[in-house]
């Protein structure tokens, strides 16, 4: 969950500014179901990827489940949506028409265009900086923000712990073999073991934090979360992508609100 040596331009922007930009884009894209606005936003996002230190390879590594999900979503929409226009393919129950293909394409592009900004945000934002911004700039309660941040660090530990508990339980005779029901039981037991360890770790961590004075009223911040000119550009960029997507779609006459 760290930036692993990513020094791209957008890593220096305030996480809150990035968050606002991403929010604007997602909001606008959630309003319409046409393919023009989605593809406009998508093209703009792909152009901006290098600024977040991302490459197509990295993108695929981090987001392949989302990309595949978007493709499957688009494909199923194309198959099952009501036909309109010329029918391109007809296999019994399933048929693909120009209209349903357009809908499916729009669906897929939209999924990607909404998901990518979030991935972009996560790739160029350090969780600690995000927490600083949320607490200092967005004025969210610091107990909540820092508590979540500390808990997130434990999530990584839990992955290791899961493997160890799995082995430790096998050494007690709880097998991962057998019928599906037995396996389910074994997995539930292992999850319980993990839960116990997670609670233990969390309570020890809570003691550590409390013993370091956490939870009081007044608090200072060693890292000041600041805005710079770059953040203005980030927000302007967000507005431009969101606005550009709407205007292009309106110009092309494809804009249609989801509720209509």
């Amino acid at each position, binding site marked *: *969950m*760290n930036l692993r040596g990513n020094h791209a331009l957008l890593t220096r922007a305030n996480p809150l500014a990035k968050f606002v930009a991403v929010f604007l884009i997602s909001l606008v894209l959630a309003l319409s179901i046409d393919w023009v606005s989605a593809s406009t936003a998508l093209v703009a996002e792909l152009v901006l990827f290098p600024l977040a230190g991302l490459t197509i390879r990295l993108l695929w590594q981090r987001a392949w489940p989302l990309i595949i999900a978007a493709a499957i979503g688009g494909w199923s929409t194309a198959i099952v949506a009501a036909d309109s226009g010329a029918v391109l393919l007809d296999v019994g129950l399933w048929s693909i028409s120009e209209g349903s293909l357009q809908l499916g394409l729009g669906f897929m592009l939209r999924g990607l265009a909404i998901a990518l900004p979030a991935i972009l945000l996560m790739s160029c934002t350090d*969780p*600690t900086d995000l927490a600083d911004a949320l607490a200092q700039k967005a004025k969210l309660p610091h107990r909540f923000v820092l508590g979540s*941040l*500390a808990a997130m*660090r434990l999530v*990584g*530990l839990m992955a290791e712990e899961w*493997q*160890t*508990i799995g*082995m*430790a*339980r*096998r*050494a*007690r*005779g*709880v*097998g*991962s*073999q057998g019928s599906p029901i037995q396996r389910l039981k074994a997995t539930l*037991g292992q999850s319980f*073991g993990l839960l*116990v*360890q997670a609670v*233990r*770790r969390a309570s*020890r*961590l809570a*003691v*550590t*934090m*409390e*013993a*370091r*004075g*956490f*939870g*009081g009223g*007044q*608090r*200072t*911040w*060693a*890292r*000041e979360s600041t805005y710079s000119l770059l953040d203005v550009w980030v927000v302007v960029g967000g507005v431009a992508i969101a606005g550009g997507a709407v205007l292009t779609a309106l110009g092309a006459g494809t804009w249609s609100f989801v509720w209509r």
Partner: protein
Amino acid sequence: MPATHSGTVRPAAITAEGWGWRHAGRAQPAIQGLDLRIEPGERVLLLGPSGAGKSTLLHALAGVLGDEEDDSDETGSLLVDGVSPRGQRGRAGLMQQDPETQVVLSRVGDDVAFGAENLAVPRDEIWSRVHEALDDVGLRTAAGGGLALEHPTAALSGGQKQRLALAGILAMRPGLILLDEPTANLDPAGVLEVRDAVGRCLDKTGATLVVVEHRVSVWKDLVDRIVVLQPGSIATGPGAGTPGVLLDGPPDQVLTEARDMLVAAGVWVPGYVPATRERVREAGTNELLLAAQDLAVSREKPRRKGFRTIPPVPAQKDITAQVRAGMALTVTGPNGAGKSTFALTLAGLLAPVDGAVSAGVGLSEGAGIDPYKWKADQLISRIGTVFQEPEHQFVTGKVLDELMFGPKHLGHGEERVDELVERLRLSHLVDANPYTLSGGEKRRLSVATVLAAHPKVLVLDEPTFGQDANTWAELASFLSELLDAGTAVVSVTHDQEFSAVLGGTELRLGPVSQGETTHQEAGAA
């Protein structure tokens, strides 16, 4: 230049008068009737058997014990500088045993700053304190790792994590430093790292120290007073009803005058190795039970890339070793040499990356040659593995169920449980929840549960970490009995005295990066 600590740290005084504490949901108090006065700047080593309430006392001093609303009970008074510790944030700093939970944030500098931030120290001063604290604990010297402020905390060793925690404590400028078994989870090098860092910081700040630790020799020269507590939670035990403090005085005096008493209480008195049962049949039957041939081991699974399978980078490779009936095999080596990974692979819990583990005819008994392919119930009646953390292996909510679990699955061996309960002193605990036991009790239980399935090979990962001398001696004697009875014992350990009791052979794993591998020395232990 940052200001020095010495000008700003005011050492804390501790007064306990008839103090006691009962945790919510417990019938008996963890500690009771404690009368104790610790002067500012004193350095106290707190000793006592498991269950004497040492951790409870430290938590109370740190002001992190319970709330008014839960149903725990406090008796008498416990004061720091004449005031209840609960309201004094930052007056005391506490370090606990598990290094993973002593780190709060993901970057070294941020983690050290965390406490000072919570105390509302101005930003500029926080950073000067952070720099100073990191220097003081020796994390910035080349030998200590030369860590930058941005260094990820996840990449630190156990000893480094504990020193980082100490830095975080120092940055708060506390008058009282509380260490709760700070080195119990560390290897010998890590133990010294942490001990020396604590010593330097105390010399500089003059803060009061209270440390809880079984291993007296580590702390003896650093403290100027030893306090021994009575067990408080066991109502029927020898200490029931007596005042909390058993002994109190300068280290040498306490250690000479009360040597026998401390030994009886399970304290690791310097220069004393607890008496253990001698091995009588060193040689064993010599039957080959398990063999590792050119083994490469890793916790990682192979990755798939397209149609190719990429094996993980091994933690250790080219290991060749044999496990024979009635023989002990001790696995030693520096941190990161893949000792535990090797033991887990040998025990059929991890798949070998390369090479093979094969079971002898006497062990496999028709189950096939590869332990990793055995079904769980086939495995437990052949190879028993005791993990470093006993809680990882608890699968039920009651000590007795825990012990019966293996035999029930196998359909035999339930009669053996009574004997194990008796032998490992678990009789008074059979109805308790395993998670509520003390560290020593958990260790004994985890060994008993694995042995209930009557395996021919027993594999133990650091079985003596953090154990008091009594548990240690019991465990070592018990294993020596098992060895004489023909069980093979494989243990991963840094504990030379422990491997000396078990005898047998030592397998030393070298650092894997140097390409140097391993050799098995006959009779080295």
